[in-house]
């Protein structure tokens, strides 16, 4: 069984290839016998499609779940989270508790979102409740900030209303589908600039849910000072933090790439806001990631040949509340700076160590429980098996303080409920 792992990829990035080569793996083509295939999302569609798909054998591993789009398409993610919340509400779970205004206390982490053109009328109703608000339009299937724009007037999206009235027989091409979300116009600013968080989360199995959070996430800063002023709504350099957009700005700097490590963010927040609120913020971030995964777990095809490394985009508002903006199935492996290259190289390295144990030919039947030593810069975010098996201890990510705390630790009165519901 000591053959070398045969790998294929259709993404020509050095951070990937260097990692394969350093393990002494052998490159093959997809038509040959391969063990490990790092695919783009188009390819995974083909592998698992009804017409062109094929069965994977026990010694083959791929880097996407067949229907990852349940989480990574903006409209489906929102749909799944809404469904999850309703289910919890029906069950009477304390997680689904609401406040006096009808807002979920613990599960309100996605900005109000509607699908267009399908929910156009519902959207208009919501829009009229607060007509001075800004909304962000995002095409469902695109990435890197493409096709995104902001609106603050209904007239700006008339196109979608016209379509919905006239196209009841015309099948809506998914390429034209948009989501419209309430724009967070009070983001937390540092140095006067807006930023978002990119965090990497590795999921090795959905049922039972086992996921890992990469410790070295980063913040992406806009190069231009943030202003909520309506005159700058068209200036994408102010509002969108995607590096793909920012790097065309005049002030883009290639040394630091407008990025901060998450530990810088933590240092800054602890120094200026205090430890408790900072810990609470980070606990909440972990919470919303786990909840988003739990939301899609029931509908995910938990194919044992699969693992996936997601790029989570999170924005923090000025009340230190984190919001989940979207989840990426193919987080960029392009490096914009030297530090970036090192980070992404290590990310792939640690990911491979967990997904392909010992760098040997995989057996997809293994229990997907790697020993602690191989985690590298990953930390266990949530392990459903461990959490359920052991009745007293929490196995989820803890803050440095060593206190096991879901972010609900301070809010729920019954401590036994914390343990039960967190699992």
């Amino acid at each position, binding site marked *: 069984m000591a053959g070398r792992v045969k790998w294929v990829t259709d993404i020509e990035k050095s951070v990937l290839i260097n990692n394969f080569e350093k393990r002494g793996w052998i490159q093959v083509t997809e038509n040959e016998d391969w063990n490990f295939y790092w695919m783009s999302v188009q390819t995974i569609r083909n592998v698992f499609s009804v017409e062109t798909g094929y069965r994977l054998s026990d010694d083959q591993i791929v880097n996407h779940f067949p229907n990852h789009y349940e989480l990574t398409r903006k409209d489906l993610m929102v749909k799944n989270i809404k469904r999850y919340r309703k289910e919890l509400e029906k069950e009477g779970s304390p997680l689904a508790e609401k406040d006096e205004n009808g807002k979920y206390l613990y599960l309100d982490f996605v900005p109000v979102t509607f699908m267009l053109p399908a929910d156009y009328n519902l959207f208009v109703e919501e829009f009229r409740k607060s007509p001075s608000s800004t909304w962000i339009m995002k095409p469902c299937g695109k990435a890197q900030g493409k096709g995104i724009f902001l609106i603050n007037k209904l007239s700006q999206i008339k196109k979608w209303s016209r379509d919905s009235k006239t196209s009841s027989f015309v099948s809506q091409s998914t390429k034209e589908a948009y989501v419209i979300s309430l724009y967070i116009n009070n983001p937390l600013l540092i140095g006067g600039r807006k930023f978002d968080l990119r965090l990497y989360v590795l999921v090795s199995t959905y049922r039972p849910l086992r996921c890992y959070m990469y410790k070295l996430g980063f913040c992406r800063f806009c190069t231009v000072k943030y202003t909520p002023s309506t005159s700058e709504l068209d200036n994408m350099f102010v509002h969108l933090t995607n590096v793909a957009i920012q790097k065309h700005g005049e002030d883009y700097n290639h040394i630091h790439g407008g990025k*901060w490590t998450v530990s*810088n963010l933590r240092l800054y927040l602890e120094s*200026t806001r205090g430890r408790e609120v900072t810990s609470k913020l980070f606990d909440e971030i972990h919470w919303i990631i786990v909840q988003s995964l739990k939301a899609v777990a029931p509908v995910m095809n938990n194919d044992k040949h699969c693992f996936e490394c997601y790029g989570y985009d999170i924005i923090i508002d000025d009340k230190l509340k984190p919001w989940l903006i979207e989840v990426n199935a193919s987080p960029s492996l392009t490096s914009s700076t030297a530090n970036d290259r090192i980070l992404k190289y290590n990310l792939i390295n640690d990911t491979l160590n967990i997904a392909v144990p010992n760098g040997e030919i995989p057996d997809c039947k293994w229990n997907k429980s790697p020993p602690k030593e191989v985690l590298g810069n990953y930390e266990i975010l949530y392990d459903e098996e461990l959490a359920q098996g052991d009745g007293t201890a929490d196995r989820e990510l803890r803050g440095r303080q*060593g206190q096991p705390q879901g972010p609900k630790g301070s809010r729920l009165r019954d401590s036994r409920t914390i343990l039960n519901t967190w699992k």
Partner: protein
Amino acid sequence: MPPEESDLSLIIAHVVQKLKGSSLYAQLERQAWASLQRPEIRLESLKEDIKEFFKISGWEKKLQNAVYSELSVCPLPSHPAAPPEHLKEPLVYMRKAQGSWEKRILKSLNSMCTELSIPLARKRPALEQKELLNKWNEMGTDEPDLSLFRPVYAPKDFLEVLINLRNPNYENGDSLGFRTHLGLIQVPLKVKDIPELKECFVELGLTTGQLGIDDSTQVPPELFENEHVRIGQKVLVEQDSAAAQQYIRQGSPTALRAELWALILNVSSQPEDVLYYEQLKTNVIQHDLLVDSLIYKDVKLTASNDDYYFVFEDYLYQVLLCFSRDTSVLGHFSYNSASPPKSYIRGKLGLEEYAVFYPPNGVIPFHGFSMYVAPLCFLYHEPYKLYQIFREMYVRFFFRLHSISSHPSGIVSLCLLFETLLQTYLPQLFYHLREIGAQPLRISFKWMVRAFSGYLATDQLLLLWDRILGYNSLEILAVLAAAVFAFRAVNLMEVTSLAAAEAVLADLSTLKVMPLLQIFLFATVT
């Protein structure tokens, strides 16, 4: 009167005089008058009653902090008949060297001025003023043409001056002996050795808890961290500067650091402080100074490219431009060996009544100057608070890093301390580096001049600056520099050129400061 007592009364008189001009004095006076209304104040025991009132209401504490603050910067007691230059710098040859260095800097500044035909200062036209006011929060986006401006000097120029310093009264002798100093600095100043440093930095010892060591993830917080945080909170409640200074020797918890530093530096943001900052801002809007372009260039070259500090670029302009115009900074020249450069109104060269200090605060920025401010942006996000803290840090500590003096925290002593530590405790390494033309000071000088800002990771830098505040001394910079060399000694022994040595020491961003210091001071066999 015995000598110690006369020294003491001299100091007291000095401190009282300093405080009489401060707003605290006015406040105390007001409070004393107001207290006469109180029932517990009786005419027969007026003095004691008022004192008691001050004690209970916390005003005594404020006075105590102010006195403590003055004592921290107060020059050592000297003979009452000593001239003011002695307070600045007692050694004549040092004063002379500083004087000629200043002449050089000023000449360089003036010639840049003439070459570029830019006045040292000019009033901004109204339109420009309005534009600048609108852009106040994002001056970083301005792209003026700075290509013709050069920094007035860089640390390595300053190093050359220090290398050539000589005490004319000191004869070294030509023969090399056991005690010959092999480093670049060739002046006889007293520096501490490791046993003395151990005494001085006793709280950094192996048996005392430290933040930066005993708060790492493997150590359970109950052992040290939790208690330390609790004590820190108590110190803040008491608002006692001296206690804070003692406490911070073991490091400051991140959440308490901003307040602790403010307490130690005796900076409290009163409304008049905010107003003062706004006044400085108005000065910036109304007048343009040549040094502004130097500041601009410096920020663009250093902080804007830094992984940690690029975010705060705009704050740096807001602080440094105001700093240049702050004439209250001139006060520190009474104990700084440097003197503010003088310039004359156009056409009135040499006429004293038309002399002004230039820049108004007397400090000409050099390459890397903005890095003194950058780390503070992690702690304070209101510009006026950031400004006050920086100004206080400058007039207490940073000025010593770029003026020639014999003070134990002056850059000359720090260089000598560094070299002596290396030569005494790592002789093989020192000798090897010297042989390959890589004098260690050539590499470590820039670290010390910048107080390691921009070289260490920010959280480590802040732990280091905690100790600067705690011990009221910059000597720790020299000790850290030596400790870094000790840490990388194995690799350094293998290099064969200055460039290779620089490469080994190019990246300090992964270093953990406190373990390095502890090992060097307390765990090395001496």
